[in-house]
């Protein structure tokens, strides 16, 4: 590598390139786009959970402003199925046909010059709906006499799975304790601050349908749209402009995207839809609603001998493309043992169809639930055995000498020292001081509790992982096109989409590492299917590893060429030069990148013999092994609870984290903290409950709480850096990790605090009311 200047390369806390436009209010989000003649769309969405759809009465003056399923019958429905023959799949049409299956399902689209006018038109239409029983909960949908949501199905379950690994009989026999519990997580949303949005129009000159979407995966979306409306991919372009947060909710092919694209095509008219917050909460994919029945078999020291789990996920009314309705349960089954050594394991899962908003990926995906179930069980086991939960964890955590480690479910944990993260967290939070503070008691009579949680997170899933899941797409690689301009600056064209992760900076740092070019001289172009080679997008904690790897390969090859040309200009050989500070150096002389670039682009006569002109290099990167790079962490927190009111406060929160080699520690920390805030939302605040008519009860920010500035503590963070053996520079993904452990850590801290009252919290979000209920039931039947 050629870099005497490492100050901006891998490992440097470089400030972000993207800040300037965002701070100056020049970020351009979907709603800010100006395409002349654009009409705005408002959807008529189902007000009921389950009904046969009769006529939609449209006032005659609006007959050219309102469009129904029949108007878009040329668009194919969205079908997301795994390759498991048992999977029962759904067909989600752009607009509902015949039947509606959740509150918020789209029935019609109204267009007008402003959104307000489009909403007026929507208001003036009347729906004929013949209501059917609402299957508003997993238990209701799986009751023996439950009507079918999709008439051709066997039952209301997308997929049932059943695995049994290791000698569970023996574990049951050898165990001195077998502890069972039921645990559950509430349903909630991903809730990016910018809601979703789509704008589609036909570019007449190029004969191209241009679709702007607030999406995390523009190239994949292009494929979806082209297939759904039978256009060649060469006639579809998808552009994600600035995107105001995604967190998974913008990494799906949505019926809104399909409808707007199809309608813009049909009418040859620019049309835009901007989701409002109510639509976002009721109709954007939901997250997290899992129920667990777990049994852990252990000996008297707390050593885990076996684990059994029944996992049920409320996947909602349709299977979300491409992840499928079985994604959450499937991931939980695979990762439930987590960072712990589990020698015998049996898991059954059900992905259940209900009359609710479809469930899609959200930061952490199945792992937040799996970690919650596993770590709450470990604390319960420790309480039962009168052991310290920290000791039980340390006893069961996989040891560094066992790395690489194959988990019982076949996951290949690549590297790391899990117990060390736990020990560092215990030291940082000062567990001894907390225990003595607990012994002394609080002046204000609040109760103090300590909780911790450890996870391991598969990131940068490669080909092997996606193939094993049997999804419609295998997201195994990422491309980069590195282009040196005649003035010696670099443009990186990449297939990922940056929406807060800092990739316009961190990918430039990779270029700096390889080419010695200043980060400020690198422009990262992303989020546009026409500017980069085909790429998969940003999700699954993959972009830095995958696109970073691709940028590294492309820039490495570019560096070789630059050195050859630079050496020629300096009248020496390529092995005698180095690259740094934007120049090619020999010991005594140097030539600037722009002189090299000028030779390669404008003056081929200056090139060495046999050297091709041009400085564009395209590369594709796949990690050496595609089984994933495993990041891991321990979260530790201290909570105070008022047993009289149920009010809670986070007194301290520590994260000890290992995401392999850090490209930019400033960005790493901020990604972790942002994830922790969202995890605390899952733990304490966020919920979209449904009533027994299938009506969602949180549809505004007045009844749906995301954590505010006063709710999130100052997170203290420590880093371990164990490079992944499989990836370029040893990078592991980290975007999601912060959101995995908070529910487990918080619930463990609360149960520790309330131990003397016999309270047992088993459900998120933990509201003050649920604390009081747990205290009450603890008092009725003390442990």
């Amino acid at each position: 590598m050629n870099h005497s200047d490492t100050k901006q390369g891998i490992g440097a806390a470089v400030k972000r390139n993207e800040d300037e436009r965002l701070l100056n209010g020049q970020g351009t989000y979907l709603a800010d786009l100006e395409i002349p003649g654009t009409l705005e769309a408002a959807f008529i969405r189902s007000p009921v959970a389950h009904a046969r759809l009769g006529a939609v009465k449209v006032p005659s003056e609006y007959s050219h402003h309102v469009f129904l399923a029949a108007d878009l019958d040329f668009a194919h429905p969205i079908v997301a199925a795994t390759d498991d023959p048992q999977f029962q799949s759904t067909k989600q049409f752009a607009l509902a046909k015949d039947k509606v299956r959740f509150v918020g399902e789209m029935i019609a689209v109204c267009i007008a010059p402003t959104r307000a006018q489009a909403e007026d038109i929507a208001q003036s239409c009347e729906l004929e709906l013949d209501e059917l029983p609402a299957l508003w909960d997993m238990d209701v949908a799986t009751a023996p006499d439950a009507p079918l949501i999709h008439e051709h199905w066997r039952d209301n379950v997308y997929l049932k799975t059943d695995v049994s690994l290791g000698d569970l009989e023996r574990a049951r026999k050898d165990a001195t304790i077998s502890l069972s519990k039921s645990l559950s997580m509430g349903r909630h949303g991903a809730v990016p601050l910018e809601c979703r949005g789509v704008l589609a129009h036909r570019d007449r000159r190029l004969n191209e349908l241009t679709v702007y979407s607030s999406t995390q995966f523009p190239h994949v979306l292009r494929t979806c749209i082209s297939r759904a409306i039978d256009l060649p991919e060469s006639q579809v372009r998808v552009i994600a402009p600035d995107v105001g947060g995604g967190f998974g909710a913008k990494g799906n092919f949505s019926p809104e995207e399909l409808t707007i694209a199809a309608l813009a095509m049909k009418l040859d008219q620019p049309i835009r839809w901007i989701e409002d917050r109510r639509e976002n909460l009721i109709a954007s994919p939901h997250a997290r609603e899992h129920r667990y029945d777990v049994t852990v078999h252990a000996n008297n020291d707390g050593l885990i001998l076996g684990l059994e789990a029944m996992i049920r996920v409320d996947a909602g009314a349709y299977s979300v493309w491409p992840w499928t309705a079985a994604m959450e349960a499937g991931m939980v089954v695979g990762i439930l043992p987590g960072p712990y050594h589990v020698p015998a394991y049996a898991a059954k899962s059900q992905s259940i169809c209900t009359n609710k908003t479809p469930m899609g990926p959200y930061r952490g995906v199945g792992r937040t639930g799996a970690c919650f179930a596993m770590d709450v069980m470990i604390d319960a086991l420790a309480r039962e055995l009168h052991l310290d939960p920290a000791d039980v964890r340390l006893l069961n955590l996989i040891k560094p000498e066992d790395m690489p480690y194959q988990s019982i479910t076949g996951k290949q944990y690549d590297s790391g020292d899990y117990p060390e993260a736990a020990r560092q967290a215990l030291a940082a939070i000062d567990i001894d001081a907390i225990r003595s503070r607990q012994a002394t008691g609080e002046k204000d009579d609040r109760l103090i509790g300590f909780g911790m949680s450890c996870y391991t997170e598969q990131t940068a899933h490669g080909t092997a992982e996606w193939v094993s899941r049997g999804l419609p797409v295998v997201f195994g690689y990422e491309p980069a096109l590195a282009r040196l301009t005649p003035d010696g600056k670099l443009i990186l064209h990449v297939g990922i989409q940056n929406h807060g992760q800092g990739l316009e900076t961190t990918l430039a740092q990779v270029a700096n590492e390889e080419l010695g070019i200043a980060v400020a001289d690198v422009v990262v172009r992303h989020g546009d299917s026409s500017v980069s080679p085909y790429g998969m997008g940003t999700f699954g904690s993959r972009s830095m590893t995958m696109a970073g790897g691709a940028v590294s390969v492309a820039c490495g090859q570019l560096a070789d060429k630059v050195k050859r040309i630079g050496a020629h200009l300096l009248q020496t050989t390529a092995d005698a030069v180095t690259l740094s500070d934007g120049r090619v150096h020999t010991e005594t002389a140097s030539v600037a990148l722009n002189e090299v670039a000028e030779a390669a682009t404008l003056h081929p006569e200056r090139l060495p013999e046999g050297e091709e002109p041009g400085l564009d290099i395209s590369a594709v990167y796949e990690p050496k092994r595609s089984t994933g790079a495993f990041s891991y962490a321990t979260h530790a927190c201290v909570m105070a609870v008022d047993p009289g009111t149920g009010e809670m406060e986070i007194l301290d929160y520590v994260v000890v984290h290992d995401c392999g080699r850090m490209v930019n520690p400033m960005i790493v920390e901020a990604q972790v903290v942002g994830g922790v805030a969202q995890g605390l939302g899952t733990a304490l605040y966020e919920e979209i409950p449904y009533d027994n008519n299938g009506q969602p009860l949180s549809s505004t920010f007045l009844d749906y709480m995301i954590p505010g500035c006063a709710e999130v503590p100052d997170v203290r963070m420590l880093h371990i850096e164990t490079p992944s053996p499989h990836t370029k520079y040893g990078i592991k993904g980290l975007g999601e990790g912060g959101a995995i452990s908070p529910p487990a850590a918080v619930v463990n801290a609360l149960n520790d605090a309330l131990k003397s009252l016999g309270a047992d919290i088993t459900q998120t979000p933990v509201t003050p009311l649920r604390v009081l209920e747990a205290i009450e039931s603890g008092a009725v039947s003390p442990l």
Partner: protein
Amino acid sequence: MKQSVSLTVNGRPVETTVESRLSLADFLRLELRLTATHLGCEHGVCGACTVLIDGEPARSCIALTVSLGGAQITTLEGLADDPAMQIIKQAFHDKHGLQCGFCTPGMLISTRDLLKRTPKPSADAVREGLSGNLCRCTGYQGIVRAVLKAAEDLAAA
């Protein structure tokens, strides 16, 4: 129903006739193309749409344009040359106080107001003072650090 109204936006007098239901946010964004003002909820909770009305921070999504006759409206665009805002922006850059940038304009305007009223806030006071602005990305830590740094830099300026 349409009504006419005259007001001042970023120092420029504006006379217009608008629907009486048009929010200030929509007026700024759709009619004046001032798109630094973002909409995160349109019901007065998230603070993304914060602007200054007669120098006071206000939620432009729930302010009606027609009720603002004679008012002075200032958006982030109108504070481009404001020395305090430049220092605040620099601090947000230095302390990584933004990720996707969607909450950022509202956050910057609220920060400027907070530091005017409380030039040397504690970290808790910053958290309290910004509790009306939601950010889904940062977990607020970078924002709090940025505001504390801006306070120092403003004091030194």
